[in-house]
């Protein structure tokens, strides 16, 4: 079956929903398909906790927000994009309020803001510590007002259809019955989020497997800066569930086994509110040097919120309290929370410019799947949810304008039948002796131990060898479920296929980048090297593995300087 929609959006998290609304408003007559492999409101965006950054108040400014972001990015962010992003942020925060978002308020009834890491002004708009959750529900509910948004829930996208550098649509499996469909479109927006399930200890939902990145990469679109992976300082033990930076924004302390606030050694000014790359490295240093706590789930440090008192915790950090009690057996009102740095954000992604355009005509990317790049080598907290809003909006209107101006281009012959055969004959027919779960677990533990916070050449080479070997073994997997209906054995194989592709790019990019910048820290090259490495990595698909190229960083106002906090 082939259906036709002017604009198709893949992914229905914050960026996808924001894009859908913008597209529906830009072209009232356009038909907008919103495709997601999961049901509404299940997207990982609901897990965003602490806040969404916008310069709203006197004393703050767009320029200050931009400078904080540039410095946070360790000067790898593109400054024109960052300035644009910061200039649009206030509007998006207000828009969401107008659409019903239950932002936490000041006594005067204005949107309240809290401090966050790396920001020199309290500019994190927040809805208690369920910011992403409320933003998602607000956008989803708002999207219900538009009759021209048509949802394809639980459709798993298997390929993008690109010919002569034009996007023509995509193929997807309707999970409910296993039917392969084609969606013929003038424009496609990727909004599928990051790739955090590459790692073992991760804040990410099970469903965040980098699908959009791998789909684009295989269709010839370059991925940018994939070696930059953010480790958030405070993942809850043992699950990795996120404990928001807002907990430190509200005044929480990080403590080692000597009961010291060790951040004073590493970032005397900002302390616990230094950017995430710095806090995570400091924590790992404490652990490596023996000042961590030992436990059955590995070494950890403590996040102490007790001095905030029950009332403040209950009002501003209720989800953190609930999660700590339910998933770690610790009530932060009574006891400090056991935490360790945890894989949290994919700075890299599909190469896109500040208009969310990729090199392919009609193909756009927004949110974590994209690399614009506003985060450079290290994202500041609160800039990801805002990125989804700003660039989701841009992508939606740009794609709609493109669709208004252009006609449908003919689909290649038999494209759906060929994909049907690739998935259901070739892929699902695999009956080897390799286990999907085992390959996945080996990939994740390899990434965790060799491509983590501290990296070195030998480890990265070894990781690359292992990933290549896993890719070979993957050809010999067994898919036990041979049915068509809701076949999650098949979808987990497809997801692993995507992740192995991405893992190789992350490792290769990290191996080649012989410097330390932001979240990418090489023990064998511990200094930032602007002379040789102030540039973006671009990975192109080839049959023999990624081919890397480099492009310059855009600098407008701020020349790179030493980064101190």
């Amino acid at each position, binding site marked *: 079956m082939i259906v036709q929609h002017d604009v198709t959006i893949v992914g229905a998290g914050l960026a996808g929903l924001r894009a859908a609304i913008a597209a529906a408003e830009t072209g009232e007559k356009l038909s907008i398909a919103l495709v997601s492999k999961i*049901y509404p409101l*299940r997207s*990982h965006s609901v897990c965003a906790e602490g806040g969404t950054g916008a310069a709203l108040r006197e004393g703050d400014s767009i320029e200050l927000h931009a400078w904080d972001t540039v410095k946070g990015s360790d000067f790898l962010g593109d400054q024109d994009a960052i300035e644009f992003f910061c200039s649009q942020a206030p509007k998006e925060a*207000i828009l969401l309020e107008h659409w019903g978002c239950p932002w936490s308020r000041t006594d005067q*009834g204005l949107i309240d803001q809290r401090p966050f890491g790396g920001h020199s002004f309290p500019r994190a708009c927040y809805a208690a510590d369920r910011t992403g959750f409320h933003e998602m529900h607000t956008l989803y509910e708002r999207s219900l007002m538009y009759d021209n948004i048509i949802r394809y829930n639980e459709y798993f996208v298997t390929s993008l259809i690109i010919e002569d550098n034009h996007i023509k649509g995509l193929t997807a499996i309707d999970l409910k019955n296993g039917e392969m469909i084609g969606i013929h479109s003038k424009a496609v927006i990727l909004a599928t989020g990051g790739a955090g399930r590459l790692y073992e200890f991760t804040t990410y939902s099970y469903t965040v497997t980098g699908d959009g990145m791998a789909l684009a990469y295989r269709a010839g679109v370059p991925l940018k800066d994939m070696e930059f992976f953010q480790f958030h300082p405070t993942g809850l033990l043992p699950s990795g569930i996120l404990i928001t930076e807002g907990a430190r924004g509200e005044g929480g302390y990080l403590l080692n086994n000597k009961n010291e606030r060790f951040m004073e050694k590493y970032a005397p000014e900002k302390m616990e509110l230094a950017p995430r790359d710095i806090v995570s490295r400091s924590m790992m240093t404490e652990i490596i040097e023996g000042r961590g706590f030992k436990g059955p789930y590995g070494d950890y440090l403590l996040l102490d919120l007790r001095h905030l008192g029950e009332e403040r915790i209950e009002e501003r950090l209720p989800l953190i309290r609930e999660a700590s009690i*339910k998933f770690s057996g610790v009530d932060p009102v009574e006891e400090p929370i056991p935490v360790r740095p945890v894989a949290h954000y994919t700075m890299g992604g599909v190469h896109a410019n500040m208009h969310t355009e990729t090199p392919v005509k009609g193909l756009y990317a927004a949110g974590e799947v994209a690399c614009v790049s506003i985060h450079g080598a290290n994202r500041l907290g609160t800039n990801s949810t805002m990125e989804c809003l700003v660039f989701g909006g841009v992508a939606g209107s740009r794609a709609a304008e493109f669709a208004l101006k252009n006609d449908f281009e003919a689909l290649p012959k038999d494209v759906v039948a060929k994909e049907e055969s690739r998935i259901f004959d070739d892929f699902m027919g695999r009956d080897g002796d390799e286990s999907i779960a085992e390959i996945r677990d080996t990939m994740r533990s390899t990434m965790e131990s060799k491509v983590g916070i501290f990296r070195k050449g030998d480890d990265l080479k070894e990781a690359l060898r292992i990933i290549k070997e896993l890719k070979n073994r993957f050809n010999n997997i067994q898919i036990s479920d041979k049915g068509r209906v809701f076949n999650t054995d098949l979808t987990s194989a497809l997801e692993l296929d995507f992740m192995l592709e991405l893992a190789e790019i992350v490792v290769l990019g990290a191996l080649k980048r012989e410097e330390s910048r932001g979240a990418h820290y090489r023990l064998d090259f511990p200094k930032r090297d602007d002379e040789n490495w102030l540039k973006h990595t671009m990975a192109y698909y080839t049959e023999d593995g990624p081919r890397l190229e480099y492009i310059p960083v855009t600098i407008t106002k701020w020349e790179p300087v030493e980064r101190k906090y």
Partner: protein
Amino acid sequence: MEEKNVVFVVKRFYNDSEEERRYEFTASRGMTVLDGLYYIKDHLDATLAFRASCRMGICGSCGMIINGRPMLACSTQIFDLDSDIITVEPLKNMDGIKDLVADFNEFFEKHKKVKPYLIRKVEKSVEEGEYIQTPDQLKEYRQYALCIKCGLCYSVCAIAGSNNEYLGPASLASAYRFMKDNRDEGGEERLLLVDGHDGCWRCHFMAECSEVCPKEVDPAKAIQMIKRKAFIAAFKRLFRR
């Protein structure tokens, strides 16, 4: 680490046929029912189908019936359950798709019916800034905005089970969330949508929905409050004549 043998009895469903399958394995303290299901999928039976995403009780994917009671699998510790035999079934009052995967389409359609978004006569422009809402005004509805659409309340509701048209607790709680938001002007328009035979008056206040709610939204209370609002509105209409 403390361990024990458990048996998961999973109600499996495929192509209209039902089957009970038993899976035995060793569970360690800290494992959730969702972890158990992943253990089965990874090591014992890759064909088992269930939904999951955030594993922190906020995305609403993994609602299922565990030992007879609707719960989120990710938020249920195996060691907290009374029995070492753990029965797992798909949510009720929804069609089955496969195994633990139930069809939520009707559930989401009903939610849409109550116009769960801010209704404004005139929308303020962005340049004019935010609508004013004090912390107290926020508190009026915040609890009802915490619903994660997991469907546990819908699954346990006897009325939703016997009447296909009944909007159900989650949708009505959502309607009430907007009724109590000082920014909303949907008053009469939304009230009419929920003040009918398929709306609040169908509810018999058995309140099981509130008991199973993993987010303490208390839909039963919301429905009673809607009834009160509807009653007052009707009373006012009477006097206007």
